[in-house]
Structure formats: C-alpha cells, structure tokens
C-alpha cells in the first residue's frame, strides 16, 4: 500500500510533463489525458482510503520513504510521504474536486488554442498540492508549497497577453514568497531547535523546546499560512487572482490551494498547542480576515471578486478555528472540506454564467438568468444556501461548529469577542451571498452588449460543465450533515489532530439560534436592498464603506505607496549610488593618478640644465641623508 502513495503524486506529475513537453501533436487529446490522470490519482486515493478504513484508528498512518533527498552532514531531508487521516481527507478533496474541475475545463476551455498547456498546468498543480499534503517533513512540504505557488502563478497568468493577468500572477507569486520566507524561517528554527524538520520527531518532541522558540515557529508558520491562504495582511493577491480562468479560481483559489495554510496550522497543531500566544495571533488573523473578506465581498460587483472575498472570509473561519486548538482543528478541516464543495460549485456556477454571458463578470449586467440557465441556477442556489449556513446544508454544520468553538475560546472575554465576530461574519456572509444571488438570477435583465457589440445570448452550459456542478451541489448539500452526524468527521481526524469538546460561554442551542437569526437578517437586508429596488447598471457612488470595500479597504493602495513606490525609489537611488559612489571611488583613484602623472611629467621640461639641477639636488639629498643616517 505504501508504494501507492507515490503514485498519487506521480500520476498528475506525469501528466504535466507529457502535456508540457508533448508539443502540438497532443493538442487534440491532451485535455483527455490530463483528466484521466487526475481521475487515476483520485482512484488511487479512493483505494488507499478504503484500505485505511479497513484498519483501526491507530495504525491508519502510512509512511513511505522514497530516497534520501539532501544528505548532508547533520542534515537529513528525505523524500518521504505520510498518509494519515488528515492528508487522506485532503487527498480525496483535491483529487475529487480536481477531477471534476478537469472535466469542467474540457468544456470551458474548448475554444482556447492553448488548452493542452492549461491541462498541463492543472496537472502540475494537482501534483504539487498532493505533494504538499503528503509530505512527511516540512522541507518537502515546502517544495509542494512553492510548487502550488508556481502552478497558481502559471494559471493566473494563463492569458499572459492580458497585462492585467500577468501582473496579477506576478503579484500572487510575490505575496506568496513573503509568506514562504515565514515558512523557511520556521523550518530553520525547527532545524536549529530539534535538529530535524520531519513531522514525527518535531511534533513529538515539542515539550523539550522553550515556549519562546515555539511561539516564534508558530508565528512564522502563521506568516506562511497568511501568504498562501490570503489572510490579512497578505490577502491582497486573491482578488486579482480572479484574472485566471474560472476553473482555476474554483480549484486553486477556492477549494484547495488557498486552504493549504489551514492544513499547515492544523498539521503543526502540536507546536501551536504549546504556544498560546501564537494561537492567539492565529485567531486574531482569522477573525480579522473573516470580517475583511466579508466586507469586501459585500461591495464587489464582479461576481468572481465577490466570491473571492467570500473565500477569504470563509478561510478566515477556518484559520480562526485552527487557532482555537484541539477544540477547533477538526472543525476547521471540516469547514474546509464542505467549503471546498460549495465554493467550487459556486465558482463553477459563476463560470457557467460568464460562459453564457460573453465572459461578462459584472453582476450589474446580469439579472433574471434563472430562466435561461436552470441547472446553473439550481446548483448555484444550493451552493448559496450551503455557504450562508442554511440549516441542514453543509455550511450550516461546519460553520456553526466553528462559531461554537469560537465562543468556547477560553471562557471569558476572548470567547465573547471572537464568538461575536464569527457570528457577525455569518450575518454578513448571508448578506453578500444573497446579493450575488439576487443580482445574478433574479430581477430584470440588465444585459449589455460586450466590447464587440454583440448582445449576450445566455444559454445553459454543456454537460461536461454541468455535471461537475451537479456533483458538487450534492456535496454542498449533504457532506456537512454526513460529517456532523455522530461526530463522524471529528472521530476520523481525532487520532491526528486530537480533539476536545468545546465548552462555549453560552449554551450551544443559543448559539445555533443566534446564527440562524443572524443569517436570516443578513439575507433579509440584502433582499431589501437589491430585491425590492431595481439594481442600477452603473454602480452608484455608494457609501464611504462601500467605496473603501470596492478598493479592498485601500490595502492595495497602501502597498503601492509604501512598497512599490518606496521600492522603486530605493532601487533607483541604489543604482545611482552604485554608479557614482562605489564605482566613483575607483574611477576617482585612477583619475587621481592620471592627474598626478600629468603634474609630475612637467618636471621633464626638456632643459638639460634642469635635469642637471635635479641630479645635483639628488646628490645633495643623498649625501645629506647618508650623513643624517649616521647622525641619528
């Protein structure tokens, strides 16, 4: 069985290599090959899953070491895999959703002449992501970590001829790099502290290390997580990442890659458990992002950007949960999975809408689409109900648990604060998602002809696109319930993440009711604002908050002024310094000698008698010096 693990990664990797090196001759069949290999990976995952279920909770962890990667004195980095319940969860999510989205892309990218390459990149992503979750040590995880970053870079910038896409891709990579600094420093800290960075040894010998060190490691891991999972303050790239093709947004920037941060934190749970300060930081980041994303989501008219905001916010929930420690890990992952289903579904739905609307993304130019694309409408609607946490659907189970856990964060003020934030978030979520729903599928048509002037003819998307949507819709409806009933999911994960029951500051039923009330309120407000009144095609100026939210709360502007401008000035001045100062010193010396030479050679004035003088003087000096030597 162990040997199969490598196969999980190998299959999509093979696909990537073949598709990218294959050249034109694969243009016809490339996408099929890619999809098949993704599916193959999923099948392998399923087999391993079945095998795992067959075992007792304790011996479910599989490890396999392929070879010693970097053998250097006192430094052991192996290419080794670890398949336990946690990674298995991810494997299934990644390969499952991944396969569906491959399927979807076949239709979605039909008319793109570079489709083969697109599938190559998708496979590359799957390979990297699987490597990330299967790695048995942090360094190998780092490889996957940057690998998914690369894949996301390539896919965001897939339409490279669009400057905006290229810029977005670059931005994504750079912001992620900042996070990666955190990860690499964390790894170095582990190395200096434990002399290794393999999961087993590190996590099992945490007790020995000082809390300060662990806090440092924790914070560094958090920084990494912020980068990858678009958490404040490194969230700015996610919105722009929507430049990529919609399947990419669905797979990478909703379902899987962006959740890697959560995985990292949960995986490193032992470290965080021993470093409460780090945990607090995690919780705060989660809470802030949760609100940040939600607010941004409320103001965006670009459907994908709105969903992106929501993603940010939902991941905020997960991070918050992960920060709560053993009471939250399981729920974080659970929400991660359910979110994977419904957010992917939502994105695919959005993609399907755009597909029918000449790639229009502005919701103000949609309206009344439910009649024209029923399947999309239904699936999207179910996803919508799921995400707002409508009782009974996936989102309800996972999110509600997180809110409970948040209230349970050390009985007292903190519990109230973070619980409240989580609760509030739920309300805002309901608001902006309702807004999206209404603006897209209800109300009157506000369609506009596209740049070429041909009006849109909305139509349902081909089967290859709708089937994945339907499957995901099922997921978004039932997954949560399935997981929650009898704490299936929690028990499943417990051996890895350990679990203790949260004890909220107020009773669980109260919290649940509060949640439902809040979300209904949110939905109602949204209906009042967008359902009852007609939606203007041109966005109104809007309140201060709205305008701020449209500009991602000015975070980009700050970055631009501080980092970009500042950086440009810095480099420019450095270039100047290098040229004038560092170089100048040398050239100056040379010039100095030249001048000296020019002055000295004037002594050579051509007059024999002056030469004689110098000789005479020289003789005099010689004599004088000799006598002087004797004198002293």
């Amino acid at each position, binding site marked *: 069985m162990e040997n199969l693990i490598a196969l999980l990664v190998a299959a999509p990797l093979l696909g990537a290599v073949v598709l990218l090196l294959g050249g034109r001759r694969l243009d016809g069949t490339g996408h099929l090959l890619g999809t098949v290999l993704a599916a193959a990976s999923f099948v392998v995952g399923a087999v391993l899953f079945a095998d795992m279920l067959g075992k007792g909770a304790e011996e479910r962890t599989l490890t396999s070491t392929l070879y010693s990667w970097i053998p250097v004195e006192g430094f052991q980095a192996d290419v080794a895999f670890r398949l336990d319940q946690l990674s298995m969860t991810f494997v299934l999510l990644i390969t499952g959703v991944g396969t569906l989205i491959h399927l979807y892309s076949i239709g979605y990218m039909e008319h793109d002449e570079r489709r083969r390459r697109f599938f190559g990149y998708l496979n590359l992503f799957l390979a990297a992501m699987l490597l990330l979750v299967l790695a048995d040590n942090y360094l190998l995880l780092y490889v996957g970590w940057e690998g998914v970053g690369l894949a996301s870079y390539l896919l965001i910038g897939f339409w490279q001829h669009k400057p905006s896409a290229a810029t977005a891709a670059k931005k994504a990579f750079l912001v992620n790099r900042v996070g990666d600094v955190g990860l690499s420093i964390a790894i170095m800290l582990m190395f200096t502290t434990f002399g290794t960075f393999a999961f087993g040894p590190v996590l099992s010998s945490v007790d020995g290390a000082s809390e300060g060190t662990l806090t440092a490691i924790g914070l560094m891991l958090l920084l990494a997580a912020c980068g990858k999972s678009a958490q404040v303050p490194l969230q700015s790239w996610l919105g722009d990442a929507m430049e990529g093709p919609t399947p990419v947004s669905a797979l990478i920037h909703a379902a899987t890659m962006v959740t890697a941060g959560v995985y990292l934190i949960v995986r490193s749970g032992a470290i965080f458990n021993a470093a409460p300060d780090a945990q607090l930081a995690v919780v705060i980041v989660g809470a802030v992002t949760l609100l940040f994303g939600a607010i941004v989501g409320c103001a965006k008219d670009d459907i994908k950007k709105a969903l992106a905001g929501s993603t940010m916010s939902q991941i905020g929930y997960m991070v918050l949960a992960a920060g709560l420690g053993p009471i939250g890990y399981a729920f974080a992952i659970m929400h991660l999975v359910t979110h994977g289903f419904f957010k992917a579904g939502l994105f695919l739905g959005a993609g399907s809408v755009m597909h029918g609307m000449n790639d229009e993304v502005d919701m103000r130019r949609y309206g009344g689409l439910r009649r024209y694309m029923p399947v999309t409408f239904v699936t999207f609607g179910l996803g919508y109900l799921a995400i707002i946490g409508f009782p009974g659907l996936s989102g309800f189970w996972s999110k509600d648990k997180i809110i409970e856990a948040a209230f349970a964060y050390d009985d007292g003020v903190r519990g109230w604060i973070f619980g409240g934030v989580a609760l509030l978030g739920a309300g805002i979520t309901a608001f902006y998602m309702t807004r999206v729903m209404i603006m897209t599928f209800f109300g009157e048509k506000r369609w506009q002809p596209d740049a070429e002037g041909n009006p849109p003819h909305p139509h349902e998307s081909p089967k290859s696109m709708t089937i994945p949507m339907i499957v995901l819709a099922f997921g978004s409806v039932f997954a949560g319930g399935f997981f929650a009933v009898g704490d299936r999911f929690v028990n499943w994960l417990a051996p890895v993440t350990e679990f203790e029951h949260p004890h909220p500051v107020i009773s669980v039923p109260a919290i649940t009711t509060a949640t439902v009330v809040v979300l209904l309120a949110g939905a109602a407000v949204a209906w009042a604002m967008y359902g009852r009144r007609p939606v203007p095609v041109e966005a109104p100026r809007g309140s201060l908050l709205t305008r701020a939210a449209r500009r991602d709360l000015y975070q980009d502007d700050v970055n631009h002024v501080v980092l970009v401008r500042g950086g440009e000035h810095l480099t420019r001045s450095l270039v100047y310094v290098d040229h004038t100062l560092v170089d100048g010193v040398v050239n100056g010396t*040379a010039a100095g000698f*030249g001048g000296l030479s020019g002055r000295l*050679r004037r002594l*050579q004035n051509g007059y024999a008698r002056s030469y004689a003088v110098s*000789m005479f003087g020289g*003789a005099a000096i010689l004599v004088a010096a*000799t*006598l002087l*030597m004797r004198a002293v």
Partner: protein
Amino acid sequence: MSATAVHSLWTTAAEVEPIGSIPAPHIEYAQLAPVLIVVGAALVGILVEAFVPRRARYHTQLFLTVVALAAAFAAVVGLAAGGYATTKAQIAAMGAIAVDGPALFLQGTILLASVVAVFTFAERRLDPAGDGGRVDSFAAMAAAVPGSDQEKAAVKAGFTTTEVFPISLFAVAGMLVFPAANDLLTLFIALEVFSLPLYLLCALARRKRLLSQEAAVKYFLLGAFSSAFMLFGIALLYGYAGSVSYARIAEVVDGSVRTIDPALADTMGNDALLLVGGALLLMGLLFKVGAVPFHMWTPDVYQGAPTPVTGFMAAATKIAAFGALLRLLYVVLPGLAWDWRPVMWGVAVVTMLGGAIVAITQTDVKRLLAYSSIAHAGFILAGVIAMRPEGISSVLFYLLAYSFVTIGAFAVVTLVRDAGGEATHLSKWAGLGRRSPLVAAVFAVFLLAFAGIPLTSGFTGKFAVFKAAAEGGAGALVVVGVISSAIAAFFYIRVIVLMFFSEPKPEGPTVAVPSPLTMTTIGVGVAVTLVLGVAPQYFLDLAGQAGVFVR
C-alpha cells in the same frame, strides 16, 4: 718637502709592497679573455673601417662583431665551466678585475644581449633602399648637417655608418669590465669606456637627426656631469681608505684593517669622507641605472637615440651598472649597510612609484618604455637592498630576464613605420592588432612581461626580487612594489587596448617585414621571455650559483 718625508713616503709605500721589488705586472690573460677578445675585435674593426672597401665593410664588420661577441661569450662559458664562477673565483690583473660568479654571469648576459642588439643594428630591410643599396637605421654621414646637400648626397650615395659596430664593441668592452671592476680606478675607466661610445651612438640616427643629436648632447653633458661627481666620490673614498682597491677599502670600512699608519688613522677618523664619497659614488651608478632623481636623461635619450641603440643601452647599460652597484654595496660598503640601506630604500620607492606614475600619461612608445625601464630599475633596487645571497641572484636573474624583453620590445618598435621613419606616437599604434596580429601579439607578450604577468619572465623576475626583499625584511618595499606594479599595469594595458580594441586608422603606419636578423632578435626575445616565465629553474640555479662575490 723634507727628505725624511720623501723617504717616509717610500718606506710607507714599502709596507704595501716589499722594497725594491715592484714586480712586473702579471696578467691572467685567460681569465680576461672575454674583455680582451672584444677589445681586440673593436680595434680590428677600426682597421677594417680604414682599409676595407666600403662595399665589403658592412658584412665584414657584422661578421667580425658577431664572431667576437660569440667568442667572448664562449670564453665566459669556458671560464664558468672552469669553475671560475664558484670555487676558483679570483682577483685578476693585479687586483683590478674580479673573475667571479656575478661578473661572469653578467658578462655572459651582456654579451648575449649585445649579440641580439647588434642584429638590430645591422637590420637593413626597414628603411627604403637608397640608390647605394639598402641602409640601416644609422646616419648616412653623421658629420653632415641635417637636411644639407652634403647629407642628401651621402644618402643618395647610400653611405652607411659601419663604424657603429666597432664603437658598440668598445662600449661592450667597457660594460664587461664595469661589473667586474675590483678597484675604483678600473670602475671609473670602465664607466667612461662604455659611456663615450654610447654618447656617439646616440647621435647617429638616420631619421629625426635633430632629436638624435639633442639626445646625444643631453646624454653626454649629464653623463659627464655625473661621472665628475662619481670621480669626486672616488677621490674622497680614496682619501678615506688610502687605497682604491675594493678589498682594502672594505677592510678599512669595517675596521678589520691590519696595518694602520698615522695618515690612515687620521683620515679613517673622518667619516664624512667615507659617507660623502660613498654617496657620490652611489649617485654615479644610480645615474647609469636611471633611478629617480637621476633618471631625467632616460626618457629624452631613449626617445632620441636610434631605436636599436636605445634597446642596446636600455638592456646592457642597466646590466653593467647594476652589476657594479651590487659589487660596490655587497663588497665594498657592506660595513656601511646601516647608512646606505635607508637611503636606497627611499631611492627604490620613489623610483618605482615615479617611473610608474609618470608613465601613465606618456604618448610616445619609446618614452613609455623609458619610464617603464625606470620603474623596473626601482624593482631591481628592491632586490639589491635585500642584502643577502638571494638578493644577488634575484637581481642577476631579473637583469637577464629584463634585458631580453627590452631589446625585443624596442626591436618591435623599429618595425612600425610610416613616411617619417618609425611611428612611435601611440595614437599611430591604434588597431595594430587588426592590421598585423602577429607583431601586435608579440609586442603584447613583451608588455605583459613588463607588467609582470605570470608565465612571462617579467613575473618570475619580479617575484624573485620581491621575495628576496621580503626575506631581507623589506616587506613594506614589497607592498610599494606591488602597488606600483598595479599602476604600471594600467599603462601597459592601455597600449594593448590601443592595439587590439581600437579601430585602425586609415592613414596608420605600416609594419615593415624585417630581415632574419631582427626576426631573430624578436624571436629570441619572445623565447627567453616565455622560457624564463614557464621553466626558469635552470637559470635561477645559474644565478644562484653565480651569486657569490669574490673579495
């Protein structure tokens, strides 16, 4: 003067030599063979000028000269093989001449250098042939006024100044004696014997005669001036020690003298005589090696003199002068080391730096090489100062290496010509590498050797002297030397850049194809440069064995 005084004069004299038996001087002809051969050949050369018909003179003289030099060299080798360089080293000719390692090594070097230099003297393919046949780079009729009808006639008739061969032979003879001189008188005579012919040779350029004459005048006046100082120094030393023999003076200086008569005791008490005398003598020699501040004749003379002569001077004079300097400092004045070493330090430093710095802004190849020769003099001085056997051998080696590079370089200079004769202005050398890569490459090799780039003789020599200096505790001097080498590198590189990386000028000079003579000179130069750079061990051994003075 009273009779007793007169008598005492004799009697005191008698203490040096037993009364009444002033023996007939016995001369070890064998040991002096090199010098004698050269002098003899020179005299024959005069006769040839007198009696052999003009047509035949050139070949006769060339043959005679080369054979003489070769024979002399053979004699040197013979002596060295006979152990005179090491075990049987001795003072010959009534104490006048030392036959020892350094002397023989330097004589050998001088002779070799002279041979290749004479080849360039004899080069006749470079200047366009006149009606009277091919001509070399010496004046058709030195006595004629430049541009006068008389000269035109002489040129038309294709006269050539074949006297240069005997003249140069005389110079060589003087140079052979100079480093071997074992008393001050011989030293002085040798100095004049090789200086006077050089003065003349400088005046004999075929082209640019005004410059040539000017060079001669400057060289002559300043040379005479310096030799006057030197002579005065000799006088004072003689006054101090009461003798001109090196051995004797040395004894007196370090106080190991056995018999002290009252007069000697009197003068010995007066250090001023010794110090001033020594200083002036030193100055005379420093003038010849072209050390700052006695260097100022060098650029002008090097530029004005006929290029073959310049090469000859630059190489041979330096060898001879440094030989004499070594002998003086190591044999005569070691007892005075504490006094002269600091002074020489100063001289070495200013010479290295001065030569290198002034060279940066030179625009004439020959002047450039002149200044570079000054800088090199400084490097060699660093070795001289070491005051240890390695010092001697390293200097000997350096001289060997340097002389061939120099002659080669100047030989290359003779090849680059335009209407006005040699095109020595640097601007004309632009793009030479494009027009005739071979010549440029060869010259580049020489320049790199001057710059002391590894795998050339220049590096080995520089390393040797610096090493000796460092071992002699002159580390600071080494650092200065290194710095000035860096400065020097700059202008050698400049020439290379000019030759290879700048576009050739349309009206640029042509590169004359020389006869086998000059080719040999250049070829030997390159060969020696590379051999001494890559596999110098044999020659280092030679210099090492030769590095012991007889006293």
